[in-house]
C-alpha cells in the first residue's frame, strides 16, 4: 500500500517535472531551432547564375558545397566576399563548390557588385525567394556547409574571416 503510493507519486512527479524541464529547455532554445537541421539532407534547389548556367544542388553530390546567402546592401557580406573568392580558388579543384545566393535583387545590382569585387565563383539570384524560404534564412550573411553526401554539416550566420572560410571548406572536402 505504502510502496504503491510512493511509486505513484514518484511517477506523477517525474512526468510533471519532465514536462516542465522540456518546456524550459525548448524556451531557451527557441531561437536556435532551424528549418534545416544539422545532419539532415539539404533541400534541393535549382537557380541560374549570372552567366546563364544552371546550378542544381543535387548535381554536386560527391562534392562539398559552400552555400552562402548574401545581399549587395549588406556590409558584412561585402566584407567576406574577397575571403570566399580567395578560398574558392584554393578549393575549387579539391572538390569544394562555392555558390553564392543573392536574395531577390536586380541583375544590375548583382552584376555591378560582382564586377566591383572581382568574384569568380557562381552567383545565383533567388528571385522568388523560395530558396530563402526553404532554408529559413533570417539575417544575412548566412552560410551553409553541405558535405559530399548532401547533408548539412554547419549553419553559420554573421561575417566570416578568411581562416574561418578556409576551415569551413576543409570540413567539407570529400
Amino acid at each position, binding site marked *: *500500500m505504502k510502496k504503491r503510493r*510512493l511509486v505513484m*507519486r514518484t511517477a506523477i512527479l517525474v512526468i510533471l517535472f519532465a514536462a*516542465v524541464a522540456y*518546456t*524550459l529547455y525548448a*524556451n531557451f532554445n527557441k531561437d536556435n531551432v532551424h528549418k534545416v537541421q544539422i545532419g539532415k539532407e539539404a533541400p534541393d534547389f535549382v537557380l541560374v547564375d549570372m552567366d546563364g548556367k544552371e546550378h542544381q544542388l543535387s548535381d554536386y553530390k560527391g562534392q562539398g558545397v559552400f552555400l552562402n546567402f548574401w545581399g549587395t546592401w549588406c556590409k558584412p557580406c561585402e566584407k567576406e566576399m574577397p575571403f570566399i573568392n580567395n578560398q574558392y580558388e584554393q578549393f575549387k579543384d579539391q572538390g569544394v563548390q562555392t555558390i553564392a545566393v543573392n536574395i531577390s535583387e*536586380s541583375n*544590375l545590382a548583382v552584376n555591378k557588385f560582382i564586377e566591383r569585387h572581382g568574384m569568380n565563383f557562381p552567383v545565383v539570384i533567388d528571385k522568388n525567394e523560395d530558396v530563402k524560404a*526553404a532554408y529559413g534564412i533570417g539575417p544575412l550573411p548566412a552560410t551553409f556547409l553541405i558535405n559530399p553526401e548532401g547533408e548539412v554539416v554547419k549553419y553559420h550566420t554573421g561575417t566570416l574571416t578568411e581562416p574561418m572560410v578556409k576551415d569551413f571548406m576543409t570540413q567539407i572536402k570529400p
Partner: protein
Amino acid sequence: MMKQVKCECGHVNPHGTVLCESCGRVLVEEEKSKKLVDMRYEGSARRSQTYNKTIIDKIWNFFSSVKVGVTLIIITLAASAIGTIFPQEMYIPPTENASVYYEDQYGFAGEVYYTLGFHNLYSSWWYLLLIASIGVSLVICSLDRVVPLYRALKKQRVDRHEGFLKRQRLYRATTLASIEEDSFENIKVKLKEKRYNIREENGSILAEKNRFSRWGPYINHIGLIIFLIGGMLRFVPGMYVDELLWIREGETVVIPETKGEYYLENHEFILETYEKEKENEAFTTAIENNGTVAKNFQTNVSLYKESGETIAGQEPELEKVEDYELRVNEPLKFEQFALYQQSYKLGEISEMSFALTNKETNEEFGQMTIDLHNPQDEYTFENGYSVELMSYFPDFEFDENSEPVTKSRVPNNPAFIFKMFSPEHPDGEVSFVAIQQTIEPYGDNDLKMAFKGVDTQNVSALTVRKDLTLPILAIGGLIFMIGVVQGAYWNHRRIWIRRLGDQVLVAGHTNKNWHGLKREITHVFDGSGIQEPIDQSDEITNKKGKEE
C-alpha cells in the same frame, strides 16, 4: 501498514481522518471541543499530510498545500503586474535597440527595468517556472483532495452520529411526544419537490442534491491543465508558425513555412478612411474631432497551390485555389494556415522616369522609365543618345566615408549614377541622381537627367500563422468553463433528519449559499411540527457581539 482508525460504528477509516467517513463521528480529540465541525473535504484524511518520510513525499506535500498554491498565484500576479509598468520589448518600436531605449525613454527606472530583464518578463525562465509550478500544484492539489472527498461522500451513512449533527452549522433538536408519520411523509414530498435525492435508513432521512457540484473545482483544474499542456506544445517544432510576409502589389511570392506549396499574389492593397459626408451622421463630430479614422485595411489576393513537383528556384506551376479579400478580422484560411492583415506601407516607389535633357535649351533627347526592381544596364535613344546605369542604390545613404551605399534592397530612397552619352560626349558625362539631389562629380555637364515622375505601389504585410495547439486550448478552456460553472452555479446541499428516542435531530449543510438552503428548509419544515434548524454560527457571532 499505516494505522487505520476504526470508528465505533464499525467503519475503518484511513489514518488522519477527522470525521468518520461513514457515520460522521468526530474521531480527533481536539475537534470534539469545537462547537462546529470543519466540513471542508468532509473531514476526510488529506493523505499528503499523513505520509512525510521520503523526499518524494516532501515534494508532494509541498505542492499539495493550498497555501503554496495561493502563494504561487499571488507571486505570478505581482510579477505579471511588474511586466506592465513599461512596454515589453515586443511593443517598443522595432527599429529601437532595447538596451538604450528603456533608459532613453524612462530614465533610471527604465535602465533598472531592462537590466533586471523585465522587458521580456513573460518569456523569462522564472516566469515560465512560476506558471509551471502552478500547473504542478494544480495536479497534485486536485489528486490529493478529490480521492478522499469521493470516498467520504460515497461512504456516508444516512443516520449520522449525533455528535456530527450537533456540530453542523444548521441544527436543531425537537422533542416530540409522538412522531406523526404523516408529517414525515409530507417532509419527504416537499424535499422531492425541491429535487432532493432521499435515502432512508432506520427511520432516518438523508436528503441530498447536486453532489456533482463538488466535482466542479476538480473538473476546472483538469481544464486548466489541458490548457497549460496546450501552451507547452507551442514549443514543439512544427506546432506553431509565426511569420511576417511583406508582399508588394503585383507580386506573387511563396508563403513561408508551407514547404513551397502555396503562393500568394497581391493584386491590390486598399486603405479606406471614414469620410464624414459618406458615413452615418452620428459619426460626424467624432470624425471632425479625431481627424482621420481608418475604416478598412484590405489586401486583395489570390492563393495558389503548386501543382507540379518542382524544386526550389524553378518556376513553379501554379493552380489557383481562390481569390480573397483579406481584411482585419477576416483572415484567409487554408489547410492549417491562416493569413492575417497585419500592416502595410503606402506608396513605395516602383518606377522612376527621367528625360535626358539639355541643361541650357531644355531640349529632350529621350525618356526612360526605370523599373526599380529590375533596372536595365543601358537605355538607348535615337540619334546616338543613350544612358548607362553605372550604379543603383535602392535605399541610398552616404556611409562614413561619404561613399554612396544602399541600406537595403527596398527602394525607399532610390539613387543612381548615370553615364549620359551624346554625339558631343561620346565618352559620357557622369551624373549622380537621388531624390531632390544631383551631383556632377566631374564638373559641369551639358546634359542632365530631368525627373519626370514616379510610379508607386503599396506593400501589404500579412502574418502567416499556423497554430496546432488551438484545439487543445479550446478543449481546455471549455472544460474549465464547464467545471467552474458546475462548481459555482450549483450548490451541494444535504439535510439530515434523525430520530433518536423522542427527539428529532435536524441538521443541514451546504458548501455555499446558506441563504438558499435556509429558505428551502423553511419551506420543507413549515407546518410539520418539527422545528426548523437554526444557524449556530449566528449564535456564535451574536454571543461574541454581546461580549464586546
